[in-house]
């Protein structure tokens, strides 16, 4: 049992009893059932935390956890368990583990699994299942969980044998973390977890059909290096794969050595420090004007660990239209899926960047030739600055709130978000310098992600690392019940609600593209979030003007436990720049009336 985190599924008396036979626990008990084999397999992988909710079909596994040192965090909803495990995986780099019972427990995990899948986050889900004899009979709480999750897992397993179930869990864990990461699932029928077995699980390993590539082909590297060396307007586009692949150092060194401007995708935030001159921050739908101008005019684009999502590319016909594309990725299926790669480099991001670097070192230093381009890029930074107006008499601007929170916290603070306008402001106006400090739902865009993700992130983070969660009023309401967990575990999380009394992103699109018909986007009926926070046992604040911001932020950051600040922001504020869906990256709107010109 860890010092910081109190046990959550045991009463104090039980915990005390467990403490007293610590001597007996020194000698590890052998595997006795399928369930204890599952638990042993998890222990072997070095897992620390499990996020889950109890229930009939998963009870044998919970029973086997009773005497384990693994920390189980009981969540209020299985969706919360999946997001918490997902965020744990993003921040720690090791697969987060979530557990649920069969049927509704398993289906409640689905959104979180799909979210992890779209963002290639390492995660493993363990679900209870009805006993094998009942499978297929529409038994109570039966769902075809492997069937339902097949399209949203990297791979999944129906564990039909108590002697091998531990190895299956180990394999699921290994598959989730190796190569291109992603979620895996093991469905555990109750008779299998209850059955007697003394087979100890072996070392967690991937199956022999799974061999992620390491190094890119030498000839391909040489050809790519030739192109980069001959370029005049190169950019690097760093995706989430740079962070997942632990290639941040290699990427930074490479960009600095050749002085190539760096753009990140949203999942790639933190791969390159945004306060560096070479950084153009994020490109795409709500990316910076300068990043989108650079993408549109570059002649070589070195994409690393990105899948060229449509929120990044806009219409592919106008994406980097003049550029030769060098694409580094560990997943061969990402190459030329959305944007054709002229120079495909399949392999581990860090290794391939090193290969490219070695190859470029054999050529004359090209960075002088890029000087004019670097100047152009800096000129675009001046032309399209990320700015907003803060007159005193206007309602509070959300961008200001983000900046104040950034100021009040350290560089290594982890930011999590819901989905909507607040998510965009949270990446636009916060300065990210470190990998694994930005935790958000990109590919799936799941409202309600922020708070449960903050719980997982906090448990994965270092003890002195702060966690700030930005939520919209709509997003917050979707998983607000997880505040009870943050309170129970006394997690030091600051939730900043950017409350515009709308599902603002929808309202922005209605205003921009549906002639202002605000159908079902007014959320003036939201509860008093500060009072609600207090009802849960957290600290609550309400701020409606500029004067109150700093004090509330200070109080919340100081407070050792979860706090919620309900910022009543300008309800009509919109996110700019904006590239309309499927539009041209170089034709972003800087204000509302630009939308008509696109």
């Amino acid at each position, binding site marked *: 049992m860890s010092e910081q985190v109190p046990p959550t599924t045991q009463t104090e008396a039980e915990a005390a009893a467990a403490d007293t036979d610590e001597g007996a626990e020194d000698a590890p008990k052998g595997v006795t059932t399928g369930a204890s084999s599952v638990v042993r397999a998890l222990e072997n992988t070095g897992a620390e935390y499990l996020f889950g909710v109890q229930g009939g079909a998963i009870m044998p596994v919970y029973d086997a956890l009773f005497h384990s040192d693994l920390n189980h965090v009981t969540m209020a909803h299985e969706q919360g368990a999946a997001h918490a495990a997902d965020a744990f995986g993003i921040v720690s780099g090791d697969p987060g583990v979530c557990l649920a019972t069969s049927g509704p427990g398993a289906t409640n995990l689905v959104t979180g699994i799909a979210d992890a899948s779209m963002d290639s986050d390492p995660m493993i889900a363990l679900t209870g299942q009805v006993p094998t004899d009942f499978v297929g009979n529409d038994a109570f709480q039966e769902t075809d969980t492997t069937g339902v999750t097949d399209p949203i897992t990297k791979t999944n397993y129906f564990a039909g044998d108590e002697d091998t179930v531990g190895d299956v869990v180990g394999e699921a864990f290994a598959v989730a973390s190796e190569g291109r990461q992603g979620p895996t699932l093991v469905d555990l029928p109750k008779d299998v977890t209850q059955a007697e077995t003394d087979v100890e699980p072996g070392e967690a390993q991937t199956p022999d*059909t799974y061999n992620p590539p390491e190094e890119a082909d030498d000839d391909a590297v040489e050809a790519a290096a030739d192109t980069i060396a001959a370029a005049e307007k190169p950019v690097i586009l760093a995706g989430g794969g740079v962070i997942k692949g632990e290639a941040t150092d290699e990427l930074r060194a490479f960009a600095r050595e050749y002085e190539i401007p760096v753009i990140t995708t949203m999942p790639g935030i933190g791969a390159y420090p945004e306060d560096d001159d070479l950084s153009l921050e994020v490109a795409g739908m709500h990316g910076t004007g300068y990043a989108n101008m650079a993408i549109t005019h570059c002649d070589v684009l070195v994409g690393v660990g990105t899948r060229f999502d449509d929120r990044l590319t806009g219409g592919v016909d106008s994406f980097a*239209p003049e550029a030769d594309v060098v694409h580094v990725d560990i997943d061969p*299926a990402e190459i*030329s899926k959305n944007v054709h790669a002229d120079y495909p480099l399949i392999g581990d991001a860090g290794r391939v960047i090193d290969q490219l670097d070695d190859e470029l070192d054999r050529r004359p230093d090209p960075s002088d030739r890029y000087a004019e381009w670097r100047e152009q890029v800096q000129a675009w930074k001046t032309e399209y*600055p990320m*700015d907003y107006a803060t007159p005193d008499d206007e309602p509070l601007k959300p961008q200001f709130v983000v900046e104040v929170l950034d100021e009040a916290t350290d560089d290594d603070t982890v930011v999590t978000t819901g989905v909507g306008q607040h998510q965009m402001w949270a990446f636009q106006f916060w300065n990210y310098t470190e990998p694994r400090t930005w935790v958000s739902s990109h590919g799936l865009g799941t409202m309600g992600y922020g708070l449960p993700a903050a719980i997982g992130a906090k448990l994965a983070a270092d003890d002195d690392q702060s966690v700030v969660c930005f939520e919209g009023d709509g997003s917050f309401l979707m998983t607000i019940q997880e505040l009870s967990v943050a309170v129970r575990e006394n997690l030091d999380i600051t939730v900043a609600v950017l409350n515009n009394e709308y599902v603002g992103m929808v309202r922005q699109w209605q205003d921009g593209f549906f002639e202002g018909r605000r159908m079902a986007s007014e959320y003036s009926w939201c509860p008093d979030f500060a009072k609600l926070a207090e009802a849960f046992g957290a600290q609550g604040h309400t701020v409606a003007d500029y004067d109150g911001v700093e004090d509330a932020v200070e109080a919340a950051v100081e407070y050792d436990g979860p706090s919620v600040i309900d910022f009543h922001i300008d309800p*009509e504020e919109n996110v*700019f720049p904006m590239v309309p869906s499927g539009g041209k990256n170089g034709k972003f709107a800087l204000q509302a009336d630009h939308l008509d010109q696109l």
Partner: protein
Amino acid sequence: MTGGLPGAAPDERPHPDGRRNSQGVRIDPEVEAEPEPRRAVLSATVKHEPGVLAAVSGLFSRRQFNIESLTVGPTEDENRARITLVIEEPDPGVEQAKKQLEKLIPVISVTELDPSASQRELALIKVDGDAPDQVQSVAEMYGGEAVDASQETVTVEITGSRQKINAAVDTFRRFDIREVVRTGTAALERGAEETR
């Protein structure tokens, strides 16, 4: 909408002349260059375990590959099954289909077969039995045979290339076809070359 940032309006910004096609390939905007679909025969060896076929067919429907046929059966190795897939896609789509298939963990290997590979399909064609002798002679023209006959119907089996079966089905129309069932394509490389 409120808000707004400084900078040149969209129309005042420089714009590049280049363009990509719908597959993301850089093209000369003067000359339209959209790739044409073609017929590709893919062969995959997979672990012989439950759920693999569902995973493969699910993958193809979810990714919207234009699938013509899919057959599956055991191989000489009892732990392996072979799936033959015929798809109709432009080159980038064929490549993508191969790579997505290879990604499935129970898939051992994937190859695209040479167009000259041995490709066979089987059809059972049930026609009106008014003129059994004529049915029999048409069947013989296609190297087929009658496998069932009743007072009212004759059922003929034909094996061969897809084109041959199409032609046979067309010819049998004169006898009033009642039902047709066709397997998908099964294929192996010619000669000693191994179909991996």
